[in-house]
């Protein structure tokens, strides 16, 4: 009787371990912060890409429209890949694209924009990565969709593709 009990305890324990490891192996090991509730956009002051002036976040997001904040850099290869999708999104009138040039060389960044086109209505410089942290980003490229109430409603980690463009277009319709 005692042996049977011990055996069943061992079997239950091993099955428990198996389920945990099996689930763990299926999980992605890339951590993505969850957006459970709609977060307000951070309040900040940033340097404008095209001039040496600074601008407040309130002025950047002043219009009653959807905004997309895209974090990019000229040294980031996936950013080059997603650029055509951003160009497509920029054609839409119901959304404004804000670019955040992350830890980049200004000369290279300007070359990148001249070469691939400028989908952004405003580009901000984030040399120290502070603005990226304020948005809760941890790499490039990353894209945030902001609604008319100035809340971050979606976050896309990695390059955006046609499927994501479709999803965004559906939301901003």
């Amino acid at each position: 009787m005692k042996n049977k009990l011990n055996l069943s305890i061992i079997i239950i324990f091993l099955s428990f371990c198996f389920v945990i490891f099996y689930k763990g192996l299926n999980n992605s090991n890339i951590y993505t912060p969850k957006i459970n509730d709609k977060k307000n956009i951070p309040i900040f002051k940033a340097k404008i890409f095209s001039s040496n002036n600074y601008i407040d976040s309130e002025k950047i997001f002043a219009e009653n429209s959807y905004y997309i904040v895209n974090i990019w850099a000229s040294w980031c290869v996936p950013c080059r890949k997603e650029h055509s999708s951003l160009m497509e999104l920029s054609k839409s009138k119901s959304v404004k694209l804000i670019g955040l040039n992350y830890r980049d060389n200004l000369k290279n960044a300007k070359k990148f924009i001249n070469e691939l086109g400028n989908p952004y209505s405003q580009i901000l410089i984030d040399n120290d990565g502070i603005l990226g942290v304020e948005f809760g980003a941890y790499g490039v490229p990353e894209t945030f969709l902001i609604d008319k109430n100035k809340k971050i409603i979606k976050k896309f980690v990695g390059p955006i593709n046609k499927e994501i463009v479709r999803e965004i277009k559906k939301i901003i319709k």
Partner: protein
Amino acid sequence: MKILKIFLVIILSMGFSQLKSYEKNDELKNKILKNIRCLICQGQSVYDSESDFALSIKFIVDKKINEGTSEIKIYEFLREKYGDWIIYDPKLNKNTFVLWILPLLLFLLGGAIMLKKLVFKN
């Protein structure tokens, strides 16, 4: 000459006190950075990493310490941006409850088994 000596002592003591405060800030900064997980590295703290993410976090922590932000407020700020996962030392809440209670339960269970065996032996 005397005035010059006094002046020199004051200047030196001011320099030392500033040096001491820098040292204190550095200690606090290192303590915080060692307790923050680098989210894009494999098993590294922000302190150990030189990734762009880690460099940004190092910069922002340094800035916040110089602004006089407390350690707890810095953790709160990072937790708000990235969730509990970014801190190595998780807070006790409904999500981390099992994490905190399970070792204690296992310890008690082990202790009870050992005690039972000892009592039976005697």
